[in-house]
């Protein structure tokens, strides 16, 4: 049978289109026999970066495990839009139990498979930022600490979007949500210390931690492949713009992801055993405004009185650039 390649052109990115590459270098998505783990017909919103990221993550993981992948999913958008009984958009064996326990359920599956001598079957857990950095943090930390053989993927859309855009501890400072309204003396989410799940994961010194965005899907694919080549607890944090929650155009999810990286707001990194091993450098530096302005949740930053917050955003970007050497000035 002749193999038909689907031309894959990811517009607006620096990634090389699949059609220009040799077969071995093409993305999983460019193949006609791609797993399509999260298949069509689901109810995700237009422009949902989580649906895009989940398809790439799972297809890559399915391929890397030779089709032997089991998935535990936290409650959240990803679960709700994909599985309203009697329909399911998932092709691999998939379980949803609760909001806070995807990591623990995955541990249970991994323990069960190990007890059965089925270490060839791999386990992936996934959830949103609420299910990971807030309500599910204890279970995620427990899974890390025990170094259970699970790849945990957090799709971070920076809030409780499924319940109507409320604030999570991953919501960025000054962002307007339904519970941090843009009114009063300090509009939006308060400026605090923030909560970096990547740094929390690194502090557990687990074998592999990485962050990625949907602006560079080949990088995302590479990181899933790398994670799947390793045993033990692994963590992947993917920034996934949410047009509904962010108040952005559904056509802007890729561009916003790119602006988050190129402004220094979202560092794309890799770490092994707690040590930073790779950082994606900024290629065309963007101002934080390029990231903030297209999002209605930051609209108050561009009105009188928003100047201070905007300056603090620039300072945050600068701090990241320094901390992770995002401009490559130290090397």
């Amino acid at each position, binding site marked *: 049978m002749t193999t038909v390649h689907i031309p894959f052109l990811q517009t607006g990115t620096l990634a090389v289109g699949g059609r220009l590459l040799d077969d071995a270098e093409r993305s999983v998505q460019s193949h006609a026999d791609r797993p399509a783990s999260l298949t069509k017909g689901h109810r995700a919103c237009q422009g949902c970066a989580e649906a895009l990221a989940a398809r790439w993550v799972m297809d890559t993981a399915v391929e890397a495990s030779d089709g*032997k992948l089991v998935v535990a999913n936290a409650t959240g958008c990803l679960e709700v839009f994909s*599985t309203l009984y009697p329909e399911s958009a998932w092709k691999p064996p998939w379980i949803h*139990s609760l909001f806070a326990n995807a990591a623990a*359920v995955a541990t249970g599956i991994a*323990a069960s*498979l190990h*007890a059965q001598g089925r270490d060839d079957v791999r386990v992936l857990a996934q959830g949103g930022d609420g299910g990971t950095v807030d309500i599910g943090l204890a*279970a995620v930390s*427990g899974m890390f*600490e025990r170094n259970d053989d699970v790849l945990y993927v957090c799709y971070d859309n920076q809030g409780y979007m499924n319940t109507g855009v409320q604030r999570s501890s991953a919501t960025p400072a000054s962002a307007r949500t339904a519970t941090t309204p843009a009114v009063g003396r300090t509009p939006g989410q308060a400026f605090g210390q923030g909560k970096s799940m990547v740094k929390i994961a690194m502090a557990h010194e687990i074998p592999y931690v990485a962050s990625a965005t949907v602006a560079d899907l080949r990088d995302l694919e590479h990181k899933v492949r790398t994670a799947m080549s390793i045993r033990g607890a692994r963590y992947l944090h993917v920034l996934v713009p949410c047009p509904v929650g962010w108040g952005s155009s559904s056509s802007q999810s890729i561009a916003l992801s790119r602006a988050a990286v190129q402004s220094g707001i979202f560092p794309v990194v890799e770490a092994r055993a707690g040590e930073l091993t790779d950082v994606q450098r900024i290629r065309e530096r963007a101002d934080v405004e390029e990231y903030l302005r297209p999002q209605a949740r930051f609209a108050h930053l561009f009105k009188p009185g928003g100047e201070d917050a905007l300056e603090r955003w620039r300072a945050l970007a600068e701090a990241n650039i320094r901390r992770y050497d995002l401009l490559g000035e130290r090397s």
Partner: protein
Amino acid sequence: MREVLEGSQAVARTVARCRPGVVCAYPISPQTHIVEALSVMARTGELADCEYVNVESEFSAMSVSIGASAGGSRAYTATASQGLLYMAEAVYNAAGMGLPIVMTVANRAVGAPINIWNDHSDAMAMRDSGWLQLFAADNQEAADLHVIAFGAAEELGIPAMVCMDGFVLTHASDVVELPTAAQVDAFLPPYRPTQALDILNPTTIGTMAGPESFTETKYLQHLRFLDAAAVIESWSDRFREAFGREAGGLVVRYDPDTLDRDREAPPASSDDLVVVAMGSVIGTLQAALEPLRAAGIPVRLVGVSSFRPFPGDALRDAIGESRHVMVIDRALELGSGGVLTGCVGRALAGTRSRLHSVVAGLGGRPILEASLQEAVRMALDGELGRLEFLDLKEGGVPTPAAGATEVAR
């Protein structure tokens, strides 16, 4: 082989012989000795082909059990009190997904005030979670019930709690005869999950069900639960045939005079006062009622072994012609009465039964034989109210003398 063993040891060794694939543990008194014993067996190899997972909370203990069961393994965990309530969300979830996990609940009070001692408030808080709840009267039955629980749970696709009184049973040494590994292997079929995460036959487990299907899902769960009574009885019958002793069942009858467990004991007669109880207080009642019977006082004992499903029909049969029932309750439905009494009352609805709820032994208060005997006498003399608290101290909670708190500090 008959041996003297602590209740927790007896349970742990029996669980190991049921060959769980995954055992999950988070410590809470008075459950600790069970999971400690299992951890030793996991290290020595006595618990073979089993993953022993230490987790960071009871919520994760039940969640790991859910994953393990869905992953195709026989899964076991144990908890008590605050731990059971901390895992509550996952307890309901396991039942809704039909995963036949077996869990020991070392029954303990629920705070505040914090109290580590025995009553049934923890298990009662989970009475509508969709789990089988089997109560042990002594250490022998606590051990044996685990074998029955795995069999019944897996046949039904319903998880099962084996409830044993904390400290009173878990920490008490008694003579027991444990099921041997060979006996259990011959008795329990290998674990065959009704639904599992199988790469060759992928399924989606735990979907969302909207208003158009949720009622029907719950109705089917209800029908399965109705099947459970017969299945529990059948496993208890098989257990008796295989092991030559009684354990479990729905309702336990006792010989009117010897007060020994007796399946053939006649139903109570119209003159009898029937005492209904659950758990280790049954042993105290056997000792307390025997001299009353010898003195010609018409009193009978009926035990509830399966609290969920609640065996209303079997209970009515055992109560027979008697319309005078006293329930010893180890958990309180605030503002109403004993929790068990409520269930007994519903089973007796439509009869003209006089029902007394005697709330006893909350938070580890010892239940004295003399107090039980007095309650029986008062009931027969028409002096016992609808709701009584056994050995309630007059004047409420004792307060320390003035200055005592300063000294303690």
